[in-house]
């Protein structure tokens, strides 16, 4: 009964997505409908799984995730090794690996003694293998999902914030260095933080600045030598969409038009809209937020935010109420997973972040993704019901 109540909000969001997909193309609708049914079945199946006996075998989860990440590298074809074929279905193992990764983290950090610096470093080292494997697929978006989940989980389990800061700072200053406003903002925030520390730690401060400046300046090198042209293009066009009409910046521009022209109530009934005339790119995946926004307008999108907040709140309540550490951590990891897939997708739709191919939680078209989401939710519910 509780499980039914818990699935109501994610299902409600998913149905909005299904309706939207039906409006875009019935092919997407039919496929996604099948995946949703499968996902719901999985939700009620995984609720029954009792992980209690193996939950402390963090290596087990780690290795399963690792195998999943290695699979596409050996069996996939083409330059981008992201999918593998199973009986005619393309399947993205890195999505499923996220489940095992969160399981690994909750298992690992559930021992209080592992939340110290040495435990953190061990987890970081093990996670680094994951990051690297996804990065060479190459799938920057998924790699950053793992990093994000790791950062949030490490934070909530109580790893020293200063330690976290040291490690988070490198990627942050690299990304922020693309916009001098963000970069300067980061430096200012850091300076304020360093002043507010109880004890003025001189060497710590120096170290922090060294990281910020070296990574900020190293980025141009990475930019020119590591990133693929399509990735570079995405970032370029992110910075100035009107000038790069044929690129993904043009997509963002069209997405904004879809949102802007929709106004307060949306243009559900209009036939000459961005979606129908196919001006909105990838309306079923990257730009489903804009596509939905075109139909339901500002009012509808605010309601969508309310729904997402309710979903996140539900996960927070589980963190709060459950007594076992691993349940708390798993729930927090799931929370991080959803936050990531909501915030970064919407940010890219609004032109605040490059279009990186991050699906929107519960809404974007894609089988593996929706199955992963409902599996995560099901696992959280199951653990909570049993472990309470």
């Amino acid at each position, binding site marked *: 009964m509780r499980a039914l109540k818990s699935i109501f909000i994610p299902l409600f969001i998913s149905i909005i997505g299904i309706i939207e997909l039906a409006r875009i193309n019935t092919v997407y609708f039919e496929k996604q409908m099948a995946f949703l049914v499968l996902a719901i079945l999985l939700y009620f199946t995984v609720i029954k799984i009792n992980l209690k006996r193996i939950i402390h075998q963090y290596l087990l989860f780690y290795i399963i995730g690792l195998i999943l990440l290695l699979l596409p590298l050996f069996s996939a074809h083409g330059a981008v090794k992201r999918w593998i074929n199973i009986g005619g279905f393309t399947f993205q193992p890195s999505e499923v690996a996220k489940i095992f990764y969160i399981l690994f983290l909750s298992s690992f950090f559930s021992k209080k003694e592992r939340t110290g610096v040495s435990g953190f470093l061990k987890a970081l080292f093990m996670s680094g293998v994951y990051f690297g494997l996804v990065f060479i697929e190459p799938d920057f978006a998924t790699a950053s999902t793992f990093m994000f989940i790791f950062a*949030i989980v490490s*934070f*909530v*389990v*109580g790893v020293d914030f200063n330690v976290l800061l040291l490690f988070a700072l490198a990627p942050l200053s690299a990304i922020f260095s693309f916009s001098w406003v963000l970069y300067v903002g980061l430096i200012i925030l850091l300076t304020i933080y360093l002043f507010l520390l109880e004890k003025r730690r001189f060497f710590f401060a120096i170290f922090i600045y060294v990281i910020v400046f070296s990574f900020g300046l190293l980025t141009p090198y990475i930019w020119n030598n590591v990133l693929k042209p399509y990735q570079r293009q995405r970032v370029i066009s992110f910075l100035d969409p009107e000038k790069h*009409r*044929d690129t993904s910046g043009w997509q963002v521009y*069209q997405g*904004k*038009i*879809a*949102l*802007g*022209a*929709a*106004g*307060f109530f949306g243009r559900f009934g209009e036939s*000459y*809209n*961005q979606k*129908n*005339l*196919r*001006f909105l790119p990838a309306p079923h995946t990257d730009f489903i937020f804009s596509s939905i*926004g075109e139909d339901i*307008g*500002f009012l509808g*999108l*605010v309601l969508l*935010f309310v729904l*997402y*907040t309710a979903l*996140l*709140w539900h996960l*927070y309540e589980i*963190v*709060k109420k459950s007594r076992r550490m691993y349940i*708390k951590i798993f729930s*927090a990891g799931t*929370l*991080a997973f959803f*936050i990531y897939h*909501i*915030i970064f997708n*919407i*940010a890219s739709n*609004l032109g*605040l972040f490059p279009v990186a191919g991050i699906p929107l939680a519960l809404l974007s078209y894609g089988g593996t993704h929706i199955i992963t989401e409902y599996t995560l939710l099901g696992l959280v519910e199951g653990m909570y019901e049993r472990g309470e």
Partner: protein
Amino acid sequence: MERRVKLVLFFTVTVFFLFTLKLFKIQIVDHAKYRKLSRKNYLRVIKIPAIRGDILDRNGIKIASWRPAFRISVLPGVLSRNKLKKLFLLVGLDSLAYNIDTFSLKRNYITLKSGIDFRTISKIEENLDEFPGVVIDAVPSRYYNQKYISLSEILGYVQEAREDEIEKLHLDVGDVVGRRGIEAVYDSLLRGKNGKRFFVVDSRGNIIQRDPTPPIPPKKGKTIRTSIDANLMNFIDSLFAPYKKGACVVYKPKTGKVLALYTKPYFNSNTFLREYKKLLNNQDKPLLNRAIQGAYPPGSIFKLISALIALKTESVTENTTFSPCTGSFRYGNRTWGCWLETGHGKLNLPHAIEQSCDVYFYQLGLAVGFKRFLNVLDSLNIPVYTGIDLPHEKRGFIPTYDWYVKRLGKYNVTEGYVLNLAIGQGEILFTPISLAVITGQIAQKGWAIKPYIVKPRKLDTLILNIDSRYFDPVLKGAYLVVNGEHGTARSIALDSIKIAGKTGSAENPHGNKTHSLFTAFVPFDNPEYVITVIAENAGHGGEVAAPIAGKIIRRLYHIE
């Protein structure tokens, strides 16, 4: 732990709130702007070209009009570079008159080419699926009456506007501009105002709906009536059949109307652009409108002006006779011949004009004096440039005393030069149109209306700076040229109507035969028409040019 999760959640909700603010900006504040952009996305404009105004001859015959032609337009941003290249190949286009990217920004249909033949069109239509965003339709296109193609040099032609012209004249891509002739001079009148049609298209260039809002109809350009007589032009063309090169002007000095402005060889306005290279390399220079751009030595026709100079300086009177002509004249240490080797004997001024006696005019020149001759010539205000309403009229040339000094050095300028000058040989150059106007001025004792093809609001009068009383002996001479017993053009004399004129044979360095010149006015006592004929390398004025003029006059007065 809950505290930190709560913090994460708090941050997330804050981000949601910031997203909402951003959405508020996009969806509420900037709603109108995005609404417009969305409309601009799908509503694309295709130009409906205005019909260019007709050009009529004096009798209302349409010599330039229009006919439908296929046009091919593309929607910018739909076709890839390679597809565009392929399309160019199919259309037979090697380049555009403009940079396509400049006009892509407006995102409306761009005219690639108009006037494509049916075979090419059907080839493209077969493969239309391959070229999304391409629209083929029929539009009015300039067409010149093939029957009156001898008028081409007067009409000019039209060509797709270049990028700079599009900007300067505020044209649309694919609009044409007039080049040469009437088309160029009256371009802004002939050009109408383009209309617009609207299409709803999707992002791939497929047309979803035509005319969701009613089209804006184009406005046709103004019809222009010219003074040219198209059938007369064709008649003149037939008279020039035996000759390779030449020009002919028929002009009404009383009104300024130019009835014929013929040049040979001439181009065809309909095929000009296709044949441009060939025309450019043609030895006979068909790109030269000889009637207004050909500079010819006037030959003996100039004797009329020499006589006027002598009369104005009172160096001669009508009855002045110099030493009789023996066929040659001794001056300095050299013998100057007359064209009639047997000599003309003793002549007065009108008879000297009648027979075009060189010896008489040598002495007339000497009587005036070289320097004075040139100064008076300069003061006459001879219209070497008429200002006719056609582009690139060439200025004739009349030398001045200073010009000789500059060219030869002060001590080499001798009286002897006046001998050549007085008979019209040497450096003097006139265009046929200018010769016609001068003839009109002489015929009317000093004035003629500035020639035109399209009647201007105000008529200008071109006046010779000489008293009208000096003209009588010259006119008498001109009368005798046709009607006198020994006149050089007596073969064309008519009973019913009196013609006057002057023949000329200009030596030219390029051919063995002289240019044959004749300029005439008719009727003698009330000049209505001036006819000036030049046939290059055709012989003496009386042999070729005068008979052509005679036939034109007979046609003008319907005499068989």
